[in-house]
């Protein structure tokens, strides 16, 4: 008791003291519009429970109050900045998050209550989605509801009003779907409007007085003291204010039922206490469980993030690998036709740009639809059998060019174990096939050249002697003379075959000169016309004015004859057509398959030879240029035709391609580089010259005795004096012993110990003006230029025809201009 009395005394003294100390300083109070608890309008009977209470306390304590108007938020800010001392109607939420100091006593509790127009109803916050919500602009509930709505990820249209009454009006007018009203205002005014109260309410707050954290604690203590005293007394001003605000009627009703209400409340409180304790325990337990789960989840999330990063890294690696593979990779649909994706190499191989290739149907890469069907069949068969396809396939680039490729097709099963996609690996083996072909040709060429050389040596005496025998016909019997002629003919045929082999192996010497390709082809065709059946249609079209090429007309003649003859053999019995077409080449017309390559810096003229014959099967296209490859019956073809054509074309730095569809004919395209030289006039040949000897002394050197004998006979019969030697060393010694006695040296090139060229060099060092004629078979290392350099006047290739030899000797001796001769001995160089 005594202690209580002392406390009361202290409290009574305290305000007096503090009032004394603060007399000159008014208390700065923030007020805001918060009907019905507070109003900024000072002309009314009551300014709301907060201000009325505060003014009651101020009167008791002799405080001076100074009001500062603002919005709730502005005033809270001012409170934090110590610009006001006290804020009535501050919402106390129980935590210390706003770092303000509140009174212990709650003046009143309230919350936000939602209303809808009378006929509408909303059950929960989620029902607010897409509705128009009316709120009061400066109301804390405005901010709170916007935050709730955004937390629930809902979309609401907010309309801000200045007063709760405007919100009620708007609800009544149906301008808004939902209105947010403070429950205290609503209790008083809801009956005035045709509105519907809803079960949604939020932001329950206890309204108290607040001061700044560093503010005047004495204010709080004094207010708490008064409030606690007022609340204890049911007749106090506090309850009067409550009655004034919320109506006496309800208040008296309230008092009448108070005992029942109190006991009911007590029971409810006990129940709620019990429930609260129980719930709290449950909550604690659940919270612990949740936090444990949360940790597990966090760990799992981290693991997943790490795994995802690993996957991204590994995918980057895989993607780089995919792109850097030099083989073309295509991934297609289950029909192996639409391309899902591809790597850069695939686009490059087929010559499409990266953005185009994806739109191409795979079947377009085959040479024809028929081919595509054939391969699709093969691919599926092999996949069924082995699980994958692997093989060499001929494919077509965008520019029409065909190329050989190694193709692997691997199916990928989807979850249903069906082949959903296919991975196709394409390796362009053009280069490999080309070099394989080139090596093969080189090997055959070397072999054929060597054989041809030996054949020439053998043919030389056969032709020579048979000619000799014919020269002395009178001494032969008529029968023998026929035999000799037959021998000579066969030998000449053999010589021409050898020449063909040499031409194919590019070892023969050519006589290249600028010619009009069109003219030469035309003249060949007029010859050909007479030798093929008249039912065959033969056309030639020239679409270029610039058809000058460096070529040997004889060889062009041979090419055209070979190609046309092949065509004639392939033609059907009726309606056969051979069409030749000469035109300027541009890159787009390089079609068909070829192992050759064109030089991009040169201009080409193209000669196309097309027929409508039986065509060439795709699988032999690669072999048709091989020597001795023939599809004709045994004995009907040598198999050298196309090999010779390719040999000639290649020696002109040209190319040949072929395009063929079985039963639809074949087309050969010859590309020859254009020449800027002008075509010379026709050379005339003096056939009536006399080539007989005038007893000039010739030193004849050949290690092959048979050949040497044949030449000796020939030359003696022509009227020359011959000294024959079969050993070149001895021949040189003989010459050196008396250089002046010889008018000419005729020597073979290939001899043991001392070659013809060395012999010539040594002889010329003694007698520089001495005419020397070198005879040679196929020689890789010794060219006509080499011979000229040494000073050798003439160079004849075996087999030697006596007529040629006679002419050469005569011309050399007579010091005629050799350049006018039309034989192979002419300068090859166009310089």
């Amino acid at each position, binding site marked *: 008791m005594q202690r209580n009395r002392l406390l009361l005394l202290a409290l009574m003294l305290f305000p007096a003291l503090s009032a004394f100390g603060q007399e000159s300083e008014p208390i700065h109070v923030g007020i805001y519009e918060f009907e019905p608890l507070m109003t900024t309008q000072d002309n009314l009977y009551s300014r709301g429970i907060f201000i009325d209470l505060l003014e009651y306390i101020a009167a008791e304590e002799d405080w001076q109050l100074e009001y500062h108007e603002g919005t709730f938020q502005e005033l809270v800010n001012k409170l934090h900045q110590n610009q006001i001392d006290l804020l009535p109607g501050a919402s106390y939420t129980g935590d210390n998050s706003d770092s303000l100091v509140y009174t212990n006593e709650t003046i009143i509790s309230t919350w936000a209550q939602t209303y809808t127009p009378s006929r509408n109803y909303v059950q929960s916050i989620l029902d607010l989605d897409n509705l128009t919500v009316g709120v009061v602009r400066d109301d804390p509930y405005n901010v709170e509801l916007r935050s709730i709505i955004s937390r629930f990820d809902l979309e609401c249209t907010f309309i*801000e009003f200045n007063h709760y009454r405007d919100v009620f009006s708007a609800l009544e007018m149906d301008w808004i779907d939902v209105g947010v009203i403070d429950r205290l205002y609503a209790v008083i005014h809801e009956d005035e409007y045709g509105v519907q109260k809803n079960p949604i309410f939020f932001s329950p707050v206890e309204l108290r007085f607040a001061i700044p954290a560093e503010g005047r604690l004495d204010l709080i203590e004094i207010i708490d003291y008064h409030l606690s005293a007022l609340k204890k007394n049911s007749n106090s001003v506090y309850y009067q204010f409550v009655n004034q605000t919320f109506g006496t009627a309800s208040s008296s009703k309230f008092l009448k039922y108070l005992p029942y209400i109190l006991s009911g409340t007590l029971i409810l409180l006990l129940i709620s206490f019990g429930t609260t304790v129980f719930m709290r325990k449950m909550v604690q337990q659940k919270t612990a469980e949740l936090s444990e789960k949360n940790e597990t989840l966090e760990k799992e999330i981290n693991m997943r993030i790490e795994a995802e990063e690993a996957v991204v890294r590994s995918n980057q690696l895989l993607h780089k690998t995919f792109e850097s593979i030099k083989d073309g990779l295509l991934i297609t649909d289950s029909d192996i036709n639409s391309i*899902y*994706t591809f790597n850069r190499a695939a686009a490059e191989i087929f010559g499409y740009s990266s953005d185009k290739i994806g739109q191409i149907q795979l079947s377009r890469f085959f040479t024809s639809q028929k081919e595509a069907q054939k391969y699709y069949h093969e691919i599926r068969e092999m996949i069924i059998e082995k699980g994958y396809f692997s093989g060499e396939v001929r494919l077509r680039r965008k520019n029409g060019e065909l190329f050989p490729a190694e193709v692997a097709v691997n199916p*990928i099963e989807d979850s249903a174990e069906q082949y959903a996609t296919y991975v196709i690996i394409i390796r362009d083996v053009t280069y490999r096939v080309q070099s394989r072909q080139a090596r093969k040709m080189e090997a055959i060429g070397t072999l054929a050249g060597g054989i041809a050389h030996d054949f020439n040596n053998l043919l030389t005496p056969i032709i020579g002697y048979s000619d000799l025998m014919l020269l002395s016909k009178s001494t032969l019997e008529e029968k023998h003379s026929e035999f000799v002629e037959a021998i000579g003919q066969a030998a000449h045929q053999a010589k021409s075959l050898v020449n063909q082999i040499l031409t194919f192996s590019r070892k023969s010497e050519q006589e290249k000169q600028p010619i009009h390709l069109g003219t030469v082809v035309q003249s060949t065709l007029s010859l050909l016309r007479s030798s093929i059946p008249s039912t065959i249609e033969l056309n030639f079209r020239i679409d270029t004015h610039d058809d000058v090429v460096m070529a040997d007309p004889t060889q062009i003649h041979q090419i055209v004859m070979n190609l046309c003859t092949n065509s004639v053999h392939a033609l059907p019995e009726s309606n056969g057509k051979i069409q030749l077409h000469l035109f300027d080449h541009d890159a787009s017309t390089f079609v068909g398959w070829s192992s050759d390559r064109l030089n991009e810096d040169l201009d080409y003229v193209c000669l196309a030879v097309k027929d409508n014959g039986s065509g060439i099967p795709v699988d032999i296209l690669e072999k048709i240029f091989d020597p001795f490859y023939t599809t004709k019956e045994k004995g009907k073809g040598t198999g050298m035709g196309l090999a010779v054509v390719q040999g000639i074309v290649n020696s002109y730095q040209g190319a040949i391609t072929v395009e063929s569809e079985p039963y639809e004919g074949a087309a050969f395209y010859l590309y020859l580089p254009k020449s800027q030289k002008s075509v010379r006039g026709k050379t005339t040949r003096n056939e009536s010259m006399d080539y007989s000897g005038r007893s000039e002394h010739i030193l004849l050197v050949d290690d092959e005795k048979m050949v040497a004998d044949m030449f000796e006979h020939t030359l003696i019969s022509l009227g020359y004096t011959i000294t024959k030697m079969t050993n070149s060393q001895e021949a040189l010694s003989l010459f050196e012993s008396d250089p002046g006695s010889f008018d000419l040296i005729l020597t073979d090139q290939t001899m043991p110990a001392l070659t013809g060229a060395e012999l010539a060099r040594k002889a010329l060092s003694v007698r520089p003006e001495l005419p020397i004629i070198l005879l040679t078979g196929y020689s890789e290392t010794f060219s006509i230029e080499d011979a000229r350099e040494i000073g050798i006047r003439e160079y004849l290739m075996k087999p030697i025809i006596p007529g040629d030899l006679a002419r050469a000797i005569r011309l050399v001796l007579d010091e005629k201009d050799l350049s006018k001769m039309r034989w192979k001995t002419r300068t090859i160089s166009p310089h």
Partner: protein
Amino acid sequence: MSFFVSYNCIFYKNFTRFLTHKAIVICIFSDNMRDMRILRYILLPVSVVLFLIISISMASGNNEIILTGSGATFPYPLYSHWINTFTGDQSVRITYQPTGSGQGIRDFLNRNNDFAGSDIFLTESEIESLEDVVHIPTCLGAVVIITNLPGNPRLKLTPDLIEGIFLGEISNWSDRRIRRMNEAVNLPELEIAVVHRSDGSGTTSIFTDYLSKVSKSWSAHVGAGKKVRWPTGMGISGNSGVSALVEKIPGAIGYVSLNYSRSEQLIPALIQNRSGNFIEPTVQSVQSAARIDLPDHMRILLTNTDAPTGYPISTFSYILVYREQAYGRRDTENARILADFLSWIIHEGQSYNADLLYGPLPAEAVTKAEQAIQSLRYNNKPLSNNTESEIQSEN
């Protein structure tokens, strides 16, 4: 652009889900490196997906010049159109976020963007040296007053009427003062419902600037700004929100920018200007408002214009750029593209203004804007000559 971003987001979400699934597969794969079958079955599908993603992200642009802008919402439809048209055939990406003038200016002052869009110009209190900032006017806009009245009449409003209505002093359409100005209109006995913006807005800023100029009472009690304490009415965010609410509430009145008043039901009111003429808000009357002497710095408000045929609530919209372009990670190319873009806006770009209900710049403003663009520098050197020569050739 926004489509692209959202598309990417969705894509990324799905892809992440996909990868999580595939991660397990990859783990198996790495443990059995020698098993070529697994390699064949896994490597390629994963590569396919990855390839698609990479190609999509590549398509989104590498080595692009990217310019970012943010600010005013009012010219946003026009800026979007300009950006699409300008960047159409160039490897340049320009983005503009309609964050509101206030946020745009904050970004600009923090040097977080390449340019800011603003309906209001900077004042000396906002930046130390105004010399550093170039204001390029880009278009003319207007704030129009729309009403929801039976028969959709074309109202005539004086400054006094507007002030009275928006202060809440005139609260019914049958008010004598309104009738006197609109004798031909059959005005109903209907409460006026004022609709205003609840969010910070350049439109509000221009409208309240106008009201502050024509009404002392307004200036004293409410004032001008992007967000003010409206004495009456209801607030809603966005120009489109205001026009929707006015359309919904009979007797409503609100203000929106000219380009949001296309609806047939919302006939903009004629407003009496300083010369006493009632002016309809059109692209032409907005242009007339700008036919006044412009200062070289072009920081001028057109509200309550002197021009006799000018609409009184008109405004320039500006793009703000720094005179010295060497800042942040910007290189000369960024600066040059920015200058090209600005130059394009004040020349070619102007042809799109009228269609989108923005006023094209008057010739004087174009000339002054040109000079301003030419004054841009990078490390104190003029930007590439072609910008200037283009301008000269157009002259």
